[in-house]
């Protein structure tokens, strides 16, 4: 029996409902894809560009103090053009799920 590689992530959807879900760490999934896999935002409203940091439809606010991968230029540039941006905004598609993200808490930014 393989060791369980899932981490628990709490995602507050755009209606304010909180979901604590298991996210796999061995499938090269990012946060945007996890949200889609669990259908926490309607299809067509998230991950529009497919995960190229080119649309900001997966913008989320990071609520916990987890250390996340550093923001790359394209993510920073996209966020500088997006709406509803806060200091803790990130693009879900640029955050790969790793074992040290257990307990991560994020909230999806409004659709725009």
């Amino acid at each position, binding site marked *: 029996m393989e060791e369980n590689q899932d981490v628990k992530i709490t995602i507050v959807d755009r209606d304010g409902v909180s979901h604590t879900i298991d996210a796999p760490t061995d499938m090269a999934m990012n946060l945007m894809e996890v949200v889609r896999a669990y259908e926490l935002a309607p*299809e067509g409203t998230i991950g*529009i560009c497919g995960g190229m940091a080119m649309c900001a*439809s997966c913008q989320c606010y990071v609520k916990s103090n987890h250390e996340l991968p550093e923001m790359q*230029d*394209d993510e920073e*540039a996209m966020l*500088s*053009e997006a709406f509803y941006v806060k200091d803790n905004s990130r693009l879900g598609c640029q955050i790969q799920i790793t074992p040290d993200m257990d307990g991560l808490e994020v909230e999806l930014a409004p659709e725009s």
Partner: protein
Amino acid sequence: MISTDILIIGAGPTGLFTVFEAGLLKLKCHLIDALPQPGGQCTEIYPKKPIYDIPAYPEILAGDLTEKLLEQCKQFEPGFTLGERAETIEKQEDGTFIVTTNKGTKHQAPVVAIAGGLGSFEPRKPLIPNIANFEDKGVEYIIKDPEIYRDKKVVIAGGGDSALDWSIFLSDVASEVTLIHRRNEFRGHLDSVEKVQELKNLGKINLVTPAEVMGIIGNGHVEGVVVKQSGEELKEFNITCDHFVPLFGLSPKLGPIANWGLEIEKNAIKVNNALDYQTNIPGIFAIGDVNTYPGKLKLILCGFHEATLMCQAAYQIINPGKKYVLKYTTVSGVHGFDGTSKTAPKAVVKKID
């Protein structure tokens, strides 16, 4: 009135390949797209990004894929209504459909194929409270006719290619161009960024960064914008202008198609995937990313397959009862409506002495 055999809504990869498959069956196509150019997402969002899962192309740029598809379907002379959004559909007594765009262009066809991807691309509007009051009264989200800015004062907001490119272009047209962006860094082609730098140094573009437009001033028409600039000290000031053009990219919305009486599930149109990708309305098909069925994958290559099967069903609707068998292009060649023909070279049959 534009008449055709298959009216395709959406000129992305799936819509363009439909033209080719329909052409093999001697059916003519016309495409409507809200964007000003064909290619859909491939040209609008990621023309310079590679795609690796197009069969027989180990790697192809999305923009090049569009070029190739246009080249492949060229001899079937597709018609295009670009920069217009399909708005309404009406079924006629003779079984055909009339589709009217937001600009009033009418199209008639016995078969409608919706290849609309994620929907039509609409400009993303900044969150400025009174902006709606000034739409088409000095606020434009898309530049259609640059001449309206001649000798006017224009404020452009945004940090991507379109903001950069239009600032450059309008610096020769408008009397004053101000570019406002939230950061000091811009993302765009290096040439564009360097050109804006040069024009700024020459005093032809007034650059305000890091700053944001917070409000619009005017009485019935834009007279200026309220700008908040951060940096060393926070300051708020007004810039006098005749036009404010926010360029924050486009985002797709299913739009009016959602009101056509089609069965919608998860922002997509339900189709019969066991047969022909027809919707709940006979004669209307949905192919590519816009449709859904059990096991659906939003892949370009799946759109190609769906388009091919859909064309066979369209043929039956347009030519009821007519016998037809699948022909291979290698055997039959490709005979365009423009009179051109492509055929496989014949083998040489010659005696060897």
